[in-house]
């Protein structure tokens, strides 16, 4: 593009990168672009930090409905060790080790756990073992349990998908959550309906 050619002859190489990354077919007034460049070039001799390639200002934040934790391992400790897992299971009342993330489970069993917890309105920390092979192996040794997903409540291993499902069906899970001080949303729902039923019966 004409603009790029002209500009690049006058500017430093770092600016060339920026200019060539401008893919626009609109007509940008060269004087305007030039003025902008000069404004920044003159005082600093280089482009503004935010405009440099690979800048770290724009941090990618992935926010999930449930507090997804992408952990940064301790600088000295390796991941998947007993100490590391000890730490992880204490960080939140409910901690889940699964394949994938709550928003995108990569396995039917992991998904089942996510759905059950969602139904009860539980917020939890989730760790994707597919992202860390050490953790994937370490968590199995930690709990002496061979499969993923694994659910921990108050630092205690509760079980995997089967157990959680059975507990959900039997209602046992509500008790387990209550012990940890978590109130199940499903329980509230059921109580609400019960109340409505009783009210309507009274009015009959």
């Amino acid at each position: 593009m004409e603009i790029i050619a002209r500009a690049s002859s006058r500017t430093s190489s770092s600016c060339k990168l920026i200019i060539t990354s401008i893919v626009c077919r609109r007509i940008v007034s060269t004087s305007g672009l030039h003025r902008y460049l000069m404004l920044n070039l003159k005082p600093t001799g280089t482009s503004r930090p935010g405009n440099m390639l690979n800048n770290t200002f724009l941090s990618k934040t992935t926010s999930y409905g449930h507090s997804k934790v992408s952990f940064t391992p301790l600088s000295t400790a390796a991941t998947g060790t007993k100490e590391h897992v000890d730490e992880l299971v204490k960080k939140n009342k409910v901690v889940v080790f699964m394949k994938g993330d709550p928003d995108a489970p990569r396995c039917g069993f992991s998904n089942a756990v996510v759905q059950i917890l969602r139904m009860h309105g539980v917020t939890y920390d989730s760790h994707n073992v597919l992202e860390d092979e050490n953790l994937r192996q370490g968590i199995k040794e930690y709990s002496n349990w061979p499969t993923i997903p694994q659910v921990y409540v108050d630092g205690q291993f509760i079980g995997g998908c089967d157990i959680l499902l059975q507990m959900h069906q039997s209602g046992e899970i509500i008790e387990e959550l209550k012990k940890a001080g978590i109130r199940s949303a499903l329980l509230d729902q059921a109580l609400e309906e019960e109340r409505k039923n009783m009210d309507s019966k009274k009015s009959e």
Partner: protein
Amino acid sequence: MSEYNREYIADKLRKELDATYITVDDLSDGCGAKFQALIVSPKFESKSLLERHRMVNSILAEEMKSIHAFTQKTLTPEQWKKQKPQS
């Protein structure tokens, strides 16, 4: 592909747990990678869900290394009687 098939798994569990009723399905279409088991055994009496599952896991500890996925339902004979459709 693991070398275990459902008969092998069922037999082993039946023997170790004195199971009164046991079904093992291979959900991986014969690949031996994904099993679903229903086990009814008096040995599960007065044991929590987790304990029961751990019992099964320890019996199959060696096999687990090559099995990719394992789903299990563990019931006592009492629970099974209540659950299954009355014949």
